[in-house]
């Protein structure tokens, strides 16, 4: 097997962690989007409440959801993502 021959590149560990963060963000994004849209929007339209003129389900799901994702993505990149060199041997030397 490959793993036995040479030790795993430590940069790949970082990369894998970041890929999982990406998947986590998508799951959160989906739950937020789905929860507000169908949680608040499933009732009859004449009982809707409105925020900034938009139906509340739409405001929370699509407008606020977008803003929340921008904040989360920015925070994830700033605080969790690590800078690694891409060129070969950039670290070991």
């Amino acid at each position: 097997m490959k793993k036995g021959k040479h030790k795993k590149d430590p940069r790949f560990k970082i990369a894998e962690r970041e890929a999982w963060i990406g998947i986590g963000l998508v799951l959160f994004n989906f739950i937020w989007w789905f929860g507000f849209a169908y949680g608040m929007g499933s009732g009859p339209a004449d009982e809707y409440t409105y925020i900034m003129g938009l139906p509340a389900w739409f405001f929370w799901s699509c407008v606020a959801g977008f803003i929340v994702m921008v904040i989360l993505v920015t925070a994830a990149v700033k605080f969790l993502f690590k800078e690694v060199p891409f060129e070969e041997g950039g670290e070991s030397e």
Partner: protein
Amino acid sequence: MNWQVIAPLLIFLIIIFLVGLWSSRKIDTGSSFLQDYFLGGRQLGGFILAMTMIATYGSASSFIGGPGVAYTQGLGWVLLAMSQVVTGYFVLMVLGKKFAITARKYNAVTLIDFLKERYNSKWVVWLSSLSIIIFLFSAMAAQWVGGARLIESLTGLSYLSALFIFAASVMVYVVIGGFRAVAVTDAVQGGIMFIGTLILLIAVIVAGGGIPNIISDLSSENPNLITPFGFDGGLTPLYVSSFWILVGVGVVGLPQVAVRAMSYKNARAMHRAIIIGTIVVGFIMLGMHLIGVFARPILPGIEVGDKVMPMIAMEVLPPWLAGIVLAAPMAAIMSTVDSLLLLVSSAIVKDVYINYIKPDAEEGTIKKMSFAVTALLGILVCIMALSPPDLLIWLNLFSFGGLEAAFIWPVVLGLYWAKGNRYGAVSSMITGTASYILFHTFYPNAFGMNTVVLPIALSLAAYVSVSLFTEKSISAAADI
């Protein structure tokens, strides 16, 4: 049509043309021609990377088709379109650093180079080259037709001359400038897409008398328009959610997007691109689809969805500003077409010609080949676009979902799952594409989900099961 609208469009075309020419001057200085021509020498910064990913992904459907459907369906379709925010961060995060590092290790210039090194299999290379050439060529022709139709409808020129103008303004910079010219013009085009969306959104809200007013107009016309379920209640949560696969996470599998994930300079560029990309793609998708919905009370009774965006721009904006805003869909189409043209050319030159026909080709020959193949492809697409053959239109139906189903697992699992092997990759590609075509033809939107969902699940099953099943024979072979 009046000149006040045409003038900004013409100026836009000239600017793109000049920017393309300007950025192509750098091409001779790079160390390796191929890497420079097809990948911009892996030197993209964060802003350009974000813009070229968005602009390549955002096509005629984001600016013309999508708002047209939103006009009919109401807010439910904007909800659906918002699944695309994901593309802004997911592709770069998932392919991420591993793809960038591995691509450099393999010295890969194309997505197929990566697959070739990873799976070490002729079959993978042939299958993937073939599907890229066939599907993306037809996708390109379809966008080409869309671009020419748009110019035709805006300027009143004949289809033939519109096609010629469109082709000439794209081809010259792609042929001589390669990837860098494509990426830099994409950045300008992405900027125009963003500004165009912003201007038109504000103008539509003002023309409709403010958001509360527009929403109450919509709701008194048909209350379904402001629910998540579409004008006739036909948009089920399952159906809308399934678009997260097609236009959200599945985009990882699109070769024209994935190749960009190996083109950036360093980790910092990637980090910036994730943030910028999420903001820009989210804003454009939210804005353009809202424009479609908000246009309804202002201009009721538009029958052809594709006309909503041009008509509302002309209605609510002074002509010169409408010209600037209508440059946005032009930009979206151009920025998709230029990337596809270069990608198909790279599949022919790098993946087929250099890999299997003439591995010892000299730098000079490669250079001439690259220019010639790109130019010939452009001309060929143009001829096809004059009267698109039925086969081409048929193939284009599969270009998006079919490519996703073919590539997503060989790329993603190829990166992260050491046990994935060539047999898994080949069977996953065949299963994905074939089942997509079959489902599309015989059982579209199976079980109430978008057609792409099942083929992607099937190709995952094929990849994993075949890889595990053939594991022993592979490791035995590797030991020898």
